[in-house]
């Protein structure tokens, strides 16, 4: 069975894997297409032109000539301010990916903040072979937040850079004034070349710098200057994001979809595998426990040789019973065994239940706050015939929860039969129709005896209890209660009267039919029908006059009912009915024909 399950699950897993592979292939193809179309590798640096910047000024920043820059952008070279918004720098962006990445970081930091910090980053590149000239690459966000500035600021000499770097500490709180002044100088340089507006105020808040190594062997040393500005961003919408082409967007979308799909598929697959493994492990564990249980029940020396010997719980059992789930499983199995197998083996299931102290586990459920646990505990104690727990079960008779009440009532009846019905005297809640049937069904397996205190129950103010008592009297033919039932007919409750009339059908005596006939005028329509039917079943010839009177009523339904009752009273009843119907004509003759055809 386990192998079948495993096979089934592995087939499902293979199916899922196949789907996964198809999806991966599809998305890979899509991704490749998007990637191959992407011109990212061929993109040049794009310079956002600031006010008062000229071609020469911008070209100097990137190490090209002003003429070349203008020509590269198909523009006419001049020495005045550049009017274009953007300029493409004839330098491949692939050579400047670090700067681009930094630019993105800066954008992230600026996003959504009203008062923000401008992050000013320097990256000093040093290599062993090419130490000079040292270039200082800066990425700045303008104070207005409108134009991200990506530019490269050349540093005059090695001495300038090396001169200020050691002065800057890693810890921002211990920044020396000298380092701050150096940062300010760098900013001033920016102001001079126009990347920062001259009117913009700058104050250094903190500086966080990883100290460069003394031997200068590291290839990249990152230095971050955090500068506070008083500028405010009007809204995030003012910030101009880096424009993306359609192909790039598609590529990003496909890549995201692939990642999400693969993640989901992987998650589902791992869940299936985990579930499969857990199911196999649980099945094995259950099989092992079942074998242990059967071995104990069928061949344990305590059960076979000497029933008076005490059952000692082995270490293996103790180990297994530590888990609550195992205890629950064992209880369920023992109950199954007890329900299906009788004789010595069946008794051994019961002994094992007590021997393993699982009755305490069931009893502990009675103290639970969850009603289903309480109901289960009651059921277990009852099925395992724990008579000494009856007082604990009895406490739940008037539980707030109807299911717990029902279980407690059933348990008491299951354990004590008719004697268990004494709970009815203290019952303050109604008994449902279903519960009434259940209790009567359970009681039917016990030898019938006189049910005590029924007269007390008949006088109860609990209507459902009175009806249940009438059903008990009827089902178990408690003939001694005839007079008490007759007294019930006098109540104002129509339903009680109805059940009393039907109850009298089972415990009638010579006077019952006459009494019922006398009650006829005082009862409701429904009860009148019941009286006519019962009189037809239990009455003798002395009740024929009563039935003929009912036959004479104007209501055709009563006519039909009385005619049926008369046919049930033997030949005399049938003869009188025929005679009466023939003498009266329609509708009586029709009624008679109808009843005759039915008979």
């Amino acid at each position, binding site marked *: 069975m386990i192998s079948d399950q495993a096979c089934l699950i592995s087939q499902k897993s293979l199916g899922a894997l196949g789907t996964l592979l198809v999806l991966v292939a599809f998305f890979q193809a899509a991704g490749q297409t998007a990637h191959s179309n992407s011109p990212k590798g061929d993109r040049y640096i794009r310079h956002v032109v600031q006010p008062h910047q000229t071609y020469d000024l911008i070209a100097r920043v990137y190490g090209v000539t002003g003429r070349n820059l203008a020509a590269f952008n198909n523009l006419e070279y001049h020495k005045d301010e550049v009017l274009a918004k953007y300029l493409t720098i004839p330098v491949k962006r692939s050579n400047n990916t670090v700067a681009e990445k930094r630019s993105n970081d800066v954008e992230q930091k600026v996003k959504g903040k009203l008062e923000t910090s401008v992050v000013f980053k320097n990256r000093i590149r040093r290599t062993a072979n090419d130490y000079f000239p040292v270039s200082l690459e800066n990425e700045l966000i303008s104070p207005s937040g409108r134009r991200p500035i990506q530019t490269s600021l050349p540093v005059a000499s090695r001495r300038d850079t090396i001169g200020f770097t050691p002065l800057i500490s890693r810890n921002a709180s211990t920044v020396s004034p000298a380092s701050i002044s150096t940062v300010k100088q760098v900013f001033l340089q920016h102001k001079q070349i126009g990347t920062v507006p001259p009117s913009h105020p700058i104050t250094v808040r903190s500086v966080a710098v990883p100290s460069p190594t003394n031997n200068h062997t590291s290839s990249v040393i990152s230095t971050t200057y955090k500068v506070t500005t008083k500028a405010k961003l009007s809204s995030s919408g003012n910030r101009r994001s880096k424009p993306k082409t359609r192909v790039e967007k598609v590529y990003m979308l496909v890549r995201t979809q692939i990642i999400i799909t693969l993640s989901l598929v992987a998650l589902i697959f791992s869940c299936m595998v985990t579930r499969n493994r857990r199911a196999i492990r649980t099945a094995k564990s259950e099989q092992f426990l*079942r074998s242990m249980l059967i071995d104990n029940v*069928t061949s344990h020396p305590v059960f076979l040789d000497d029933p008076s010997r005490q059952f000692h719980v082995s270490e293996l059992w103790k180990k297994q019973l530590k888990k609550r789930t195992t205890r629950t499983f064992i209880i369920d199995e023992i109950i199954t065994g007890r329900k*299906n197998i009788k*004789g*010595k083996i069946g008794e051994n299931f019961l002994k094992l239940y007590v021997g393993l102290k699982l009755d305490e586990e069931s009893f502990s459920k009675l103290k639970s706050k969850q009603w289903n646990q309480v109901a289960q505990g009651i059921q277990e104690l009852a099925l395992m015939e724990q008579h000494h727990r009856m007082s604990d079960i009895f406490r739940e008779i008037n539980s707030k929860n109807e299911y717990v009440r029902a279980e407690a009532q059933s348990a008491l009846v299951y354990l004590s039969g008719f004697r268990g019905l004494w709970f009815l005297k203290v019952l303050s809640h109604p008994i449902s129709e279903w519960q009434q049937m259940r209790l009567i069904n359970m009681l039917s397996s016990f030898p019938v005896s006189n049910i005590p205190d029924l007269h007390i129950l008949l006088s109860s103010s609990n209507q459902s209890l009175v009806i249940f008592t009438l059903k008990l009297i009827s089902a178990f033919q408690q003939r001694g209660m005839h007079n008490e039932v007759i007294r019930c007919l006098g109540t104002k409750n129509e339903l009680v009267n109805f059940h009393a009339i039907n109850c009298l059908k089972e415990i009638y005596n010579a006077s019952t039919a006459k009494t019922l006939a006398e009650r006829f005028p005082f009862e409701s329509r429904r009860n009148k029908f019941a009286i006519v039917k019962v009189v037809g079943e239990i009455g003798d010839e002395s009740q024929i006059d009563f039935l003929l009177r009912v036959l004479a009523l104007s209501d055709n339904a009563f006519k039909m009912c009385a005619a049926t009752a008369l046919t049930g009273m033997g030949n005399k009843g049938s003869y009188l009915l025929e005679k009466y119907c023939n003498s009266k004509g329609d509708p009586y003759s029709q009624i008679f024909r109808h009843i005759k055809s039915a008979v």
Partner: protein
Amino acid sequence: MKRMVVLLAEDDPLILLTLETFFTKEGYEVITAANGREALRLFETNAPDVIITDMMMPFYSGLEIIARIKGGFIKQPIIIVLSALGQENSVKEAFELGVDDYVTKPFSLVELSLRLKRLINMHATHHYSLKIKEGA
């Protein structure tokens, strides 16, 4: 002496294991099936001498198994039905199909074993008398 092969068909694993353990100790060769389909398959491959089957099982009920065995195989095993259904109709239907015995749950394993032994003896006597008749 060849051991008698008993096919147990029961969907409740605990009852199945209990029956298996008990009848193995009694000296029978036991094969088990957890559902009706498996029971029929095992019957075809193992040709057991005795079938003890539950009435309510997945795929095929006990009565369906009996009907197929009675209708389609030459070798007719001893069939005992175990059932929680003690109604007259169920018992009648089972006996009409040709079961040898009907045991209602809860059942006693000892009683079941005794019933089985009696049926085996009856079958043996029946076969012996048939052989004598054929010889005569």
